[in-house]
């Protein structure tokens, strides 16, 4: 499989704290790459660097589209990363537009398709610029994703009133409405019950396989090892900002470094 995202020597420093320390790994196209590690390992920080919320202290983040077009994510402005490089994300603490309906959340995600520039947005006020067919297509896509996450019935309900699991699914669908090539999910299974976790795994596999949408690679932060082991093709393990293991789920599960990091604080040495 072709390389999609390549992280090279990524370092992120917050004052005296080294949150990510010369981290390198790659995520291949068409795969689910899991990033795991104990709390505070620096996983979310890596995501924030990839999606432009933090500027890395140093290092390269290169994304290559299927067509061969490449982007250096560390030097793109935040909103261009989603719009041009097509990297979408969800957040560890759900960030839906809580006062808007489920459908509106999905429509906001298609903002750049609906309104390519300010002029077209203003022309639409006077019914010019061919807005209607574009809106119809956007609604179709929203319907597709509503159906995929099982929220069609609740399309006109306010997002903030949905049960927790549904909010998690909606956030994923919203990110998918951006038409990403890489979907970054920050602990999507957190707070879900076992049945919901299973449904989530199935949804992610369908997204990766292109059964819904156009096929999309996934970068997944997750603490639920059941989910990680079941669906990921490749696992990267972080601890204290450093990569301690990298490989297939089996290989990682049996890696003594990983076991040490998870069982006790490596520094104190449990053995």
């Amino acid at each position: 499989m072709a390389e999609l995202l390549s992280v090279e020597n990524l370092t992120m420093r917050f004052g005296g704290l080294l949150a990510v320390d010369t981290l390198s790994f790659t995520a291949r196209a068409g795969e689910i790459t899991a990033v795991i590690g104990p709390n505070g390992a620096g996983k979310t920080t890596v995501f924030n660097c990839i999606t432009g919320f933090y500027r890395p202290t140093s290092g390269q983040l290169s994304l290559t589209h299927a067509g061969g077009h490449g982007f250096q994510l560390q030097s793109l402005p935040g909103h261009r990363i989603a719009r041009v490089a097509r990297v979408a994300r969800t957040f560890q603490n759900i960030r839906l537009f809580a006062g808007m309906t489920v459908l509106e959340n999905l429509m906001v995600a298609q903002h750049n398709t609906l309104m390519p520039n300010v002029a077209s947005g203003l022309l639409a006020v006077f019914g010019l610029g061919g807005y209607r067919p574009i809106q119809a297509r956007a609604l179709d896509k929203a319907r597709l994703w509503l159906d995929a996450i099982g929220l069609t019935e609740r399309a006109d309900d306010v997002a903030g009133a949905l049960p927790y699991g549904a909010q998690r699914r909606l956030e994923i669908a919203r990110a998918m409405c951006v038409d990403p090539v890489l979907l970054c999910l920050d602990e999507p299974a957190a707070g879900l019950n076992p049945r919901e976790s299973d449904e989530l795994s199935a949804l992610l596999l369908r997204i990766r396989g292109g059964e819904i949408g156009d096929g999309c690679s996934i970068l997944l932060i997750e603490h639920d090892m059941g989910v990680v082991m079941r669906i990921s093709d490749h696992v990267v393990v972080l601890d204290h900002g450093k990569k301690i293991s990298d490989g297939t789920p089996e290989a990682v599960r049996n890696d003594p470094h990983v076991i040490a990091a998870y069982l006790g604080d490596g520094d104190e040495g449990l053995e």
Partner: protein
Amino acid sequence: MTMLRDALLSALVALGLFGVMIGLKTDPGPTSLVLTWRPEAVAIAVVVVFFGRLALLSWRASRPAVAKGPGQVAAVMRKAGKYLAPVLLVLTATMPFYAGRYYLDLGILVLTYVMLGWGLNIVVGLAGLLDLGYVAFYAVGAYSFALFATEYGLGFWTCLPLGGLFAATFGVLLGFPVLRLRGDYLAIVTLAFGEIVRVVILNWVSLTGGPNGISGIPRPTFFGLTFSAAGGEGSFADFFGIEPDISQRVIFLFYVIFGLALLTNWVSLRLRNLPLGRAWEALREDEVACRSLGINVTITKLTAFGIGAMFAGFAGAFFATRQAFISPESFTFIESAIVLAIVVLGGLGSQLGVAMAAAVMIGGAELLRGIVIAGVDLVEYRMLFFGLALVLVMVLRPRGLVSGRTPSVSLGKAREIPAEMVAEGRG
């Protein structure tokens, strides 16, 4: 028993406060101020507080424990709103047929504030950007209208869009450095900007006439026909062969501002259901999420600022032509505060609420004029009533008179979203 004690305590506090505030009156004496002691006034105030508190407490105690839920209130308001809006519209549109000159003038004033309120509602209500310097754009519109009209002799219908355009440009230019600030910081900086614009106008005497203002601003024309009391060649009355009457101009002005206000309303309502307006509301809900979806936050905020400023510019241009004279005094901070109060009272994002709030705050206050109680004109207490109204609404309906939002798009039947769910925005 506890009620009595509570009331006594309130009376005691009132005694302490009013003993100084009301009890001691200073009058200018022959050489210095003379203190007059007014025990009877203090006694009245304290007794009023005592019985007022008692009445309030017993009313609360007698009230049934379960009050109407917020959802129910919202439902009633929405039903009322459905009928109220068309009724208000018809009443306003036919006003020149039944109202006298005084009320028409008042109507023009109210409509100006309705328009300003609707314009600011785009910035504060939809995009959630707290702008305390809105009057700056009103001033820019008024001054650009006045300068183009007096210096270059351009007509009303040319200067009006120019006023809006200038104000919008100003909005975008100001927005550029300012919009990276959020919440309270944004509020303070916009407040300062409002003052800066006023001070510049005050001091740039060669251009703006400074404190003397600009006078002789031409009145609007009706397709080139003027409105003058004398009538004569090329006037409206002459053309239509009717008696010249100054009220014709007032009626014309009334319809101009009515049209401008409706335009503001129409554009905001349209935008709300289009991607741009939806992005504004999304920005108010969660800026970080917007960015993660590829929305250019800066541009989106700038459009809100610019469009809001444009409508203020139109209103300012109208103000200039109606008054025929403008000076910096008309563009003080208090104007910004009044418009913001109208938006907050009416309910952020609510068009009907803003119109009602403007009618009550501006029209209602003006109607107090001439009502003389104990030798003082009640209009002097306008600000007191403003304050009372704000406090009352904030206690009873913290989200404004009409709150809640209608979804901008729906698959089935759109349901109103209760105000409690909607974010107010942090700038």
